[in-house]
């Protein structure tokens, strides 16, 4: 088990190093680092200073090490727009995005698993067909368009929910979150739904597949032979078997959600990291873009690593215990 952990850690570090190298080359070797990292209206003196601190006259490998050193210390340049360390700006906005993503994940489980179970226990029935077609529709809907339609229906036409922005936040368990206020929740509903929709479709399909693959297995027949009720069979025996893969896929999908948050935040003007990157791209605030890429990639690598570890921890068959 420890060998496995170490191997995965090494792999992760390798990928991280590789990405940092690619980004570094993109900035320092292909592009002009001064143009990328310095605001266009920097003075000549500033240019000299930055040039020296980045070591632009030194050989490339030195620059790379410098780059990595700075990065590990949290210095990835200053945002032109916000005039603060790019990394700081990103971490300021990250909680809003995480709030959205976690809500969407929970929603996808709460809605997707029951629907998937329902479809799975009645294969090839009308219920099954309808739910499956609806799930294809769910992940065919272009994310951004669907968000716009949600706004149109619930904000513009019905006027039930606010169209954009994050609501008031309060403190819950010491964290600033929208869940603490009614206004915050009202603002959270549409964007979270928007983000969750494709995930719901995915969870439905996963659950249904899991149920259909598990029901014919021998231990289900044995459970019936012991006189267990169908509900116990489905909710305990089947569920326990399919939850592990579902949860691990969701762990991986966490990253996908962060990606799609870019779109959702743009449409709903949600002040998270996704909106930040789009704004920064448009404003040519390149230090933020660079910082975003590195932070996100790091997050992904960590998430994938954690998911792998969690999977091996959850499945009792892989836990090495003496027989």
């Amino acid at each position, binding site marked *: 088990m420890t060998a496995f952990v170490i191997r995965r850690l090494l792999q992760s570090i390798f990928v991280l190093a590789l990405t940092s190298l690619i980004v570094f080359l993109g900035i320092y070797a292909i592009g002009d680092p001064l143009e990328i990292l310095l605001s266009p209206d920097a003075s000549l003196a500033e240019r000299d200073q930055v040039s020296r601190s980045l070591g632009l006259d030194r050989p490339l490998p030195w620059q790379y090490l410098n780059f990595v050193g700075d990065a590990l210390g949290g210095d990835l340049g200053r945002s032109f727009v916000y005039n603060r360390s790019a990394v700081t700006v990103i971490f300021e906005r990250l909680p809003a995005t995480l709030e959205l993503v976690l809500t969407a994940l929970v929603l996808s489980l709460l809605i997707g698993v029951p629907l998937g179970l329902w479809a799975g226990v009645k294969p090839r029935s009308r219920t099954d067909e309808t739910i499956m077609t609806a799930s294809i529709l769910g992940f065919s809907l272009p994310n951004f368009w669907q968000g716009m339609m949600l706004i149109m229906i619930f904000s513009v036409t019905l006027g039930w929910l606010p169209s954009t922005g994050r609501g008031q936040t309060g403190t819950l368990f010491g964290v600033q979150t929208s869940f603490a206020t009614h206004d915050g929740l009202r603002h959270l509903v549409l964007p979270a739904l928007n983000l969750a929709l494709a995930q719901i479709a995915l969870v439905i399909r996963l659950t249904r597949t899991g149920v259909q693959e598990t029901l014919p297995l021998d231990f289900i027949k*044995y459970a019936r032979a012991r*006189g267990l*009720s169908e509900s116990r069979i489905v909710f305990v025996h089947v569920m326990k078997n399919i939850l592990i893969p579902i949860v691990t896929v969701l762990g991986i999908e966490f990253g996908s959600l962060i990606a799609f948050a870019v779109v959702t935040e743009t449409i709903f003007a949600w002040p998270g990291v996704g909106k930040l990157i789009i704004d920064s791209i448009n404003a040519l605030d390149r230090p933020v873009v660079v910082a975003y890429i590195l932070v996100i990639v790091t997050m992904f690598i960590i998430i994938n690593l954690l998911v792998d570890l969690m999977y091996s921890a959850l499945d009792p068959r892989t836990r090495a215990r003496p*027989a």
Partner: protein
Amino acid sequence: MMTPLLSVSGLVTEFPGRDGAVRAVDGVSFDLARGRILGLVGESGSGKSVTGFSVLGLVDAPGRVVAGSVRFDGEELLGASPRRLRSLRGNRIAMVFQDPMMTLNPVLTVGTQMVETVCAHRRVSRRAARVEARDALGKVGIPSPEERLDAYPHEFSGGMRQRVAIATALLHAPDLIIADEPTTALDVTIQSQILGEVQRLCAETGTGLIWISHDLGVVAGLADDIAVMYAGRIVERAGVDDVLDVPRHPYTRGLINAIPGAGERGRPLHQIRGSAPSPTSRLVGCAFRPRCDRAGEACLEEPGEVLGPEGRRWRCFHPLEAGA
């Protein structure tokens, strides 16, 4: 005369196939008295396992029982409500399957699975159920049962897992246990241990047992009566001594001969030529005809069941002579 514990009559179980329905069980009848052990013997594809599942209504869809009667303690099981069947399963009729690695849920502890079996039929607290489970494990000879309850199936050896399955079967002191090849997946020494355990337990508790196997040798030491199945039908039915000493059906004789005996060293093993027909390709007339030395014109007709002395039955137009 008491009503038999289990009375199966004319049981027919079909599976839909590409070219019409396939009869895995084709008119099977037998009785089992209380406390007796019946050995149901046959090759793969003979329909013996499906017979066992049919009794409990556990035939995998789209297969189903289409005809016949299964009377358990006087009550008709075929067509009984799912609720009624569920209340009987694991309670008054228990099953032991062939490979407990496949039949125990790998992600739940053994304790959980035994406790849920208890609670499915009786209102007891989890703690009381756990005590019962622990005692049951002890009865089948599993050491340190208290700790073993929290173990997962993969942490047991094959023989131990099967003991767990037997313990689970005994939790509600069933009237009948149907064991489907329970020792086939185990090695010989464990097999004989399990056989001994089961024999002892059944004698102690007066539980009826149907032991399904392809191995006549295994069943011979255990059963009171033997029913030989071939191609979905029972071709011979009698007490164990009668069957082994004086078989009437040529197939039975073939099975007995095929058991390697210690006194026959160096001699070629007896074989029954040919192979058993698959359920999809049943012949007209006697199914054993292509492999039988005694087959004649009459065998193009399906042999009916002949009732012999002392309740013996066989299906053959040219049975072996009494004393052959």
